[in-house]
């Protein structure tokens, strides 16, 4: 069994599925010889050839549209946006075609494609390389939006994403690409694309998060535990469709919820979770819902970026507020 980082798990899943299914192809900028700017596709072109690992011209619109075309014609393309900040030119094809093809044609054509993109801040990168913009996709019907936060979940969810018969947006939290290694068997076992993962059981407060922020959230749970506060930690993992039941069950138990994400607060995906709590869990809540998020500003260039991202300190403070409130 291999000890792998999150990004190695991505590579492993890609290689596994390409070996298993000849219709899987990878395309994007620098995914070939270079193996991707983050090395996610390293070795794939050597193994599977230039016909299945394709360096495209530098145009995200092209990548997205060709991906739709490939998928509608029997391939299973995995497209890469080099950074989440460059995904905007892909949106028309994703929103108007990938997300709609099956519905439009009453099932005649479909788009079993995956769009991968390194996501989020905290790596001291240049402008446009640190955004958390999952909100772009979560309101679009017909998509799945996935954001793994560990090597094993990256492996299992990416396999599932590739196998899924519908389009999946797969954001990879680049800050934790190489944070730690985990034993991940290359066994081809996919994880479900419609469940949240409870990473830590607790009874006093529910901390809900996704992506790289899982790190700070787990640390916050540790810090709270040191003060005798028992925090349950949930990794949403698949934002769309949302497994609200798991969150709701937890809140029924704890009565308190802190939602943590690094995207800007207003209309970030945390709002949806808070909204469902306001609709469905009002009688379970012992305290107002809290959101600990990026500010409603652009993530600053890297000198200030860590002051933008939610910190353990902010999460702990919010959790304590929910306890003080009730």
């Amino acid at each position: 069994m291999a000890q792998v980082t999150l990004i190695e798990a991505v590579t492993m899943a890609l290689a596994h599925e390409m070996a298993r299914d000849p219709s899987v192809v990878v395309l994007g900028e620098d995914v070939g010889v270079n193996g991707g700017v983050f090395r996610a596709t390293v070795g794939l072109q050597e193994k599977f050839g230039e016909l299945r690992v394709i360096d495209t011209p530098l145009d995200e619109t092209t990548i997205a549209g060709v991906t739709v075309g490939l998928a509608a014609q029997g391939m299973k393309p995995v497209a890469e946006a080099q950074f989440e900040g460059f995904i905007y030119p892909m949106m028309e094809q994703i929103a108007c075609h990938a997300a709609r093809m099956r519905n439009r044609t009453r099932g005649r054509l479909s788009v079993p494609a995956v769009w991968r993109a390194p996501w989020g801040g905290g790596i001291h990168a240049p402008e446009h390389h640190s955004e958390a913009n999952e909100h772009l996709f979560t309101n679009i019907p017909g998509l799945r939006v996935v954001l793994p936060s560990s090597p094993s979940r990256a492996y299992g969810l990416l396999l599932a994403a590739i196998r899924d018969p519908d389009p999946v947006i797969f954001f990879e939290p680049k800050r934790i690409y190489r944070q730690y290694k985990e034993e991940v068997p290359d066994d081809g076992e996919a994880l479900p694309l419609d469940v949240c993962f409870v990473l830590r059981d607790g009874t006093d407060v529910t901390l809900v998060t996704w992506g790289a922020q899982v790190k700070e959230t787990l640390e916050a749970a540790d810090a709270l535990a040191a003060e005798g506060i028992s925090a349950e930690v949930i990794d949403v993992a698949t934002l769309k469709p949302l497994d609200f039941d798991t969150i709701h069950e937890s809140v029924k138990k704890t009565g308190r919820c802190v939602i943590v994400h690094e995207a800007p607060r207003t209309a970030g995906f945390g709002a949806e979770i808070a909204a469902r709590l306001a609709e469905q869990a009002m009688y379970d809540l012992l305290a107002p819902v809290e959101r600990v998020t990026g500010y409603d500003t652009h993530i600053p260039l890297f000198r200030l970026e860590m002051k933008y991202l939610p910190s353990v300190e902010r999460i702990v403070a919010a959790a304590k507020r929910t306890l003080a409130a009730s």
Partner: protein
Amino acid sequence: MSIAATFEIEYLQYLDPEGKPVRKDFPEFTRDLDHMVELYKLMVSTRVFDTKSIALQRTGKLGTYASCLGHEAAHVGIGSAMRREDVLAPSYREYGAQLYRGVQPREVYLYWGGDERGNDFQNAPKHDFAWSVPIGTQCLHAAGAALAFKIRGEQRVAVCTIGDGGSSKGDFYGAINIAGAQNLPLVAVIVNNQWAISVPRRIQTGAKTLAQKGLAAGLFAIQVDGNDIIAVRKAMDDALARARSGQGGTVIEAVTYRLGDHTTADDARRYRSEAEVKEAWTRDPVKRLRAWLESKKAWDAKKEEAWKAECEAWMDEEVNAYLKTRAQPVEAMFDYLYAELPADLAQQREQAIALERGH
């Protein structure tokens, strides 16, 4: 002076507006007069179909409809050159090509009548793309299809159509560029009908021809008289043959004219002169092929009348089938969204059904 590259854009035409040959070297396929009659018949039925569609819209039985009046040579030329295994990625008015490939008028009516089932082609190749409203996007679908053929080693070609306006969109450029870079079997046909809604060709680009856009991508590029089906068909045949044999993609500009309004929601009198339209009618593609066929004794007024009557009957049947189609149930909006309906959506589906049933 040192020259890095030189280019020529050919203009291809066989028949003048009166249907008289302007050159001698007619392509082989024109010798098969039965086939030429078949092409003509489809041009006529396309026009009958179009007239019927507009009538349906005017009487409230269709939503907005985009007419193909004047494009018959271009569209039938495209459709008739393709093989069934090829893929067509049209925009929204290329019925002539689609009817040739088996799309049924009733499907067109359903689509413009606000019913998704129009896109679920029953007789046309299942792999053909549906109508594409977001301008230009279909070009990239064709490029993707062409890439799929290349990857799988299939001898198939992807064809996309795009308007003069649409050829301004980055998607078109992206599609021809990747076709050139990857040597894909793509044929991109710019159906230049001089107008993009109210925007004339001259405001759309400073390029002398639209064909030359192909040069930017290193593709074969040719301009044809889009009202001369022989020219369109010849350029298509050549382009398809090249693409099929791995010799690369082509941009064809078919120069024609949109004789009708942009759609039934448009009133072209606001922005173009009747004189211009009248003048354009002198280049009517249907009239032109008919004149040539008549000069070959392959067609006459009697045949014309008989065929038109047949078309009318066909369209009446199609209209009836369309009008008889039962509405989709409310849950149809949920049932084709995902291969399998996610749990939270299943709940919404139940609610919608309950609401429909009066709770």
